[in-house]
């Protein structure tokens, strides 16, 4: 389990995360919901130290890191070892082939042999249905294919958790489905995941738990079923807003 405790973060004096405490259970999928600008990405990125909160802590069984104190290289390494992030725009390395995008980190960071890393990478590529594209460059793939490869890249590091920040928001509905199917599969296999998404159907389908934040404050933290079936007035507003708001991606 990952526990975030009393996280505070501000940008230029503006509070973005306000004393947020939340648990992400192992082997489960937690979905973070909230309006645009509410602080979802900031919260998710804190876990992987891509954002550094001013105070609060992140806790794993037997490990605690206090954000307000300097975190040593060794500690940030072991912290990042536990999680891998998947980005909205996938952020594949354009200078590397698909295969190398996946194998470079295991070889460089974990010291895996080339043979070992490639074997694992090829299994992953096959699992996401993209066998045969190993030698292509990211620019030669569709967005949906790139996102599936970036999921492989994250999985290749054997993280305990995968953190996904709007993994399908930049995709057409058709390509979105391909990616969602893979995430659903991972979810069924008991992969621990934290997902930020605007896709309510998907959230409802895969999540074991919902965290809803607004203006940097946690508004809901609990059961998925409860969230959708007994929404508070505010959540009801949010849920109905999502389906009619023309600025939100088509589902």
């Amino acid at each position, binding site marked *: 389990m990952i526990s975030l405790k009393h996280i505070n973060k501000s940008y230029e004096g503006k509070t973005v995360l306000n004393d947020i405490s939340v648990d992400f259970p192992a082997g489960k999928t937690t979905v973070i919901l909230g309006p645009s600008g509410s602080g979802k990405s900031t919260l998710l990125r804190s876990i*992987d130290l891509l954002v550094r909160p001013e105070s609060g802590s992140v806790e794993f069984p037997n490990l605690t890191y206090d954000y307000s104190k300097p975190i040593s290289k060794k500690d940030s390494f072991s912290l990042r070892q536990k999680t*891998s992030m998947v980005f909205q*725009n996938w*952020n594949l390395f354009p200078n590397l082939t698909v295969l190398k995008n996946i194998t470079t980190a295991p070889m460089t960071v974990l010291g895996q042999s080339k043979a070992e890393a490639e074997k694992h990478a090829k299994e992953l590529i096959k699992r996401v249905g993209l066998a045969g594209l190993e030698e292509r*460059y*990211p620019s030669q793939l569709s967005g949906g294919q790139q996102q599936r490869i970036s999921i492989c890249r994250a999985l290749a590091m054997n993280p305990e958790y995968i953190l996904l920040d709007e993994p399908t928001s930049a995709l057409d509905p058709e390509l979105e489905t391909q990616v969602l199917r893979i995430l659903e599969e991972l979810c069924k296999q008991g992969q621990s995941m934290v997902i930020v998404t605007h896709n309510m159907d998907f959230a409802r389908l895969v999540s074991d738990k919902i965290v809803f934040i607004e203006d940097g404050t946690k508004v809901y933290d609990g059961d998925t079923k409860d969230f959708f079936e007994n929404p508070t007035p505010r959540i009801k507003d949010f849920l109905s807003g999502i389906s009619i708001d023309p600025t939100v991606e088509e589902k």
Partner: protein
Amino acid sequence: MWNTIITSLPELLSAMIQYTIPLALLSFLFGLILAVLTALIKFIKPSENKALKYPWLVLRAIASFYVWLFRSTPLLVQLFIIFFGLPNAGIQLDPFIAATIGFSLNTGAYASETIRSALMSVPQDQWDAAYTLNFSTTQTLNKIILPQAIRIALPPLSNSFIGLVKDTSLASSITILEMFQVSQQMTAKNFEPLLMYSLVAALYAIICSILTLLQHYLEKRTNKYVKGSAA
């Protein structure tokens, strides 16, 4: 006319092969190494670690001074100082070495700014992606950022290289028998300045055209590394 061209061509070509091309190649190579180092020193933020912070700030100051110095003074003056001036300080250099040093330092100063701006133009997303995979800063630079930056810098660096090829003609003024110097000497004998200088201009143009073709080839080959590198 053809006679003059045919008799002078071998000597011009031999000056090209012996001096112009090696001078340009060596200076570009050393200049590029210097440029990458300088660009990295100016690009990488000083670490929070106090023991490393101050030496790094000193290095940064030196790098900035170097770039400022060589961009704010004329190349010809730099060559004169290195070749004619330094002997007064007890440093006597072979003309070819003096020229190589001068051209390398000058190219390095300009190219370092090209590379630094290329480094800055690699999106933060790439750093984030590397960090989440637990790459160290050095590994991220080596494997991800520098290769992309070099690709971005390829067209402006080719520009610098082409400029350098033509600038080697300035080495004539510090006694090097490169192509332009040879053409001057021949003119003194055959009194054909229009023909001789046009001929030498054509030879520079040929080298530069070949370099341009090479640049386009490299750009094409590496296009797939940059196109659509995500939004």
